[in-house]
């Protein structure tokens, strides 16, 4: 070690090495014990077979858990649903959030704070509570959705909104959109408010106003924020758990299963801990790839 090495404030590092280590170490200990070591054991454990009652009795099975996953129809449904949620969330949450942000930024004069407050509110309500409220709304007998449709003479789904495998995942998306769109709106609105007024004045001289100005001038200027918004939404889409767990428990017949709920099902209901680890590793790989993109995006921004 070179004792004359200086830090950014300009004095010897070695005299402060101890306090630097003390400041840094708690964060590393917490993340290591509860994130990195468990990630390591998830990978190791995915090559073994063990159950809840035999947590320390591991049986080596090689790649069997991964072969099982590749042949497991419900694993593929879960993975496909996560991707559906990614794309639907980008369109519904980032897309609609951008439109709302643009309207609140320059589209309307009155009520900006009121609209922003209302639309942002769902963000602070627990997803479990949100899902239970929507269970009542979707209820075939007591729910307002069916009763409104019946009142105006429209047909209602015979298996219920959450009981029909063709529509249930979209019903979950309506709830997810209800909770998260306001967050995207606020994020993008912060970016829009950083665009200076001169830019709009210059655009107006060039004949670009309203939607045209937004599309050709504003949007490219907030490109980085949109990328961050898409990344946050994508990462969130792979973390989805509560909406599915409360609204459908992954049903009907596993049609709305996602990786989070399927890992939970395998680990804590079916007690296939080794198999659950293999599924976790799939999620881990996806998460780390997304994390890598996040790092790239934040460096550019």
């Amino acid at each position, binding site marked *: 070690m070179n004792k004359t090495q200086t830090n950014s404030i300009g004095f010897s590092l070695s005299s402060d090495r101890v306090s630097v280590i003390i400041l840094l170490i708690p964060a590393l200990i917490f*993340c290591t014990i509860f994130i990195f070591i468990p990630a390591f054991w998830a990978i190791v454990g995915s090559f073994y077979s063990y159950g809840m009652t035999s947590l320390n009795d591991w049986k080596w099975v090689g790649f069997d858990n991964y072969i099982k996953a590749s042949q497991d129809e419900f694993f593929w449904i879960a993975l496909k649903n996560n991707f559906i949620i990614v794309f639907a969330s980008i369109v519904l949450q980032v897309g609609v959030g951008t439109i709302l942000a643009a309207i609140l930024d320059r589209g309307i004069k009155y009520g900006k704070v009121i609209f922003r407050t209302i639309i942002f509110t769902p963000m602070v*309500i627990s997803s479990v509570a949100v899902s239970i409220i929507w269970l009542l709304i979707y209820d075939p007998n007591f729910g307002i959705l069916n009763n409104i449709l019946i009142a105006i003479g429209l047909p209602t789904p015979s298996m219920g909104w959450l009981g029909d495998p063709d529509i249930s995942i979209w019903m979950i998306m309506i709830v997810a959109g209800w909770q998260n769109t306001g967050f995207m709106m606020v994020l993008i609105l912060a970016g829009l408010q950083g665009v200076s007024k001169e830019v709009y004045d210059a655009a107006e001289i060039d004949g670009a106003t309203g939607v045209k100005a937004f599309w050709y001038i504003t949007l490219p200027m907030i490109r980085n924020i949109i990328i961050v918004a898409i990344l946050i939404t994508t990462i969130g889409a792979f973390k989805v758990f509560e909406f599915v767990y409360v609204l459908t428990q992954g049903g009907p017949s596993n049609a709305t299963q996602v990786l989070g709920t399927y890992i939970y099902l395998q680990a804590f209901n079916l007690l296939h801990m080794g198999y659950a680890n293999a599924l976790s590793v799939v999620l881990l790989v996806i998460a780390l790839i997304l*994390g890598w993109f996040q790092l790239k995006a934040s460096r550019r921004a």
Partner: protein
Amino acid sequence: MSKFKLANIFAYGFVTLFSIYVLLPIIVMILTTFKTRREIFLEPLGLPGQFNFSSFEKALSIGLGGFIFNSFLVSLFSVILIVIISGMAAYVLARIDFRINRYVYLLIVAGFAIPPAAVLVPLYVTVSNLGLLNSIYGVVMPLTAFGIPFTVILFYAFFLDFPREVEEAATIDGCSKMQIFFRIIIPLSGPAIASAAIFQTVWIWNEFLLALIMLTSDEVKTLPLGLMKLRGEWSSDWPSIMAGLTIAILPVLIVFLIFQKYFVRSLAGLGK
């Protein structure tokens, strides 16, 4: 001119419709609370005949107060730990050219990307080995770990913009790094601490998956688990379930409405 008016109608129309979509479930929740089970069945779209508070009493009788108290403790302990620990680490990353800093930052970003479900089984085993199953510390510890990476990133950005002159003066006066951090940096970081604390409180107050696997006995359950219990035990007694939800949501909503400026600022900072 008429084109301008049309755009205006569309703009107001769009935000109004979206606001109705957001408000409707909350209105349904509150109105259902005051209805009787008979009214729910016969007139799902009707207003409650009279203000009926019996469902509130029923919801409280199942121990909702205890669940709220547990959530309060879990949030309080986790958020204090997250803010202090993340602040210390971010300060080192932002201010000192330590050789390993680059790798520490990469680890932090990796930690941010990994969701609890990706380490679910080993995390359960870890908490079990620590003897913390069915203890609120069994969720406080892992939640703290999962909250740290994001908060470090948030503080890191804040400290980079922080003026260095004060620290330089303190260094000349002979303060150590620890003294500088606790006596100068912390007192001047109010806005960053508020943002981080607000964001983490919202997340931890509502966290469900880790609580679900770690806390199985009623005495230690947090609010989201308590709400599932209401739902499980009173499957079609919607007025009582909604009363429970109203009790659970209302305090958070009031806090949000009072501090909404800070909430918005906290989350908006994410994009930067």
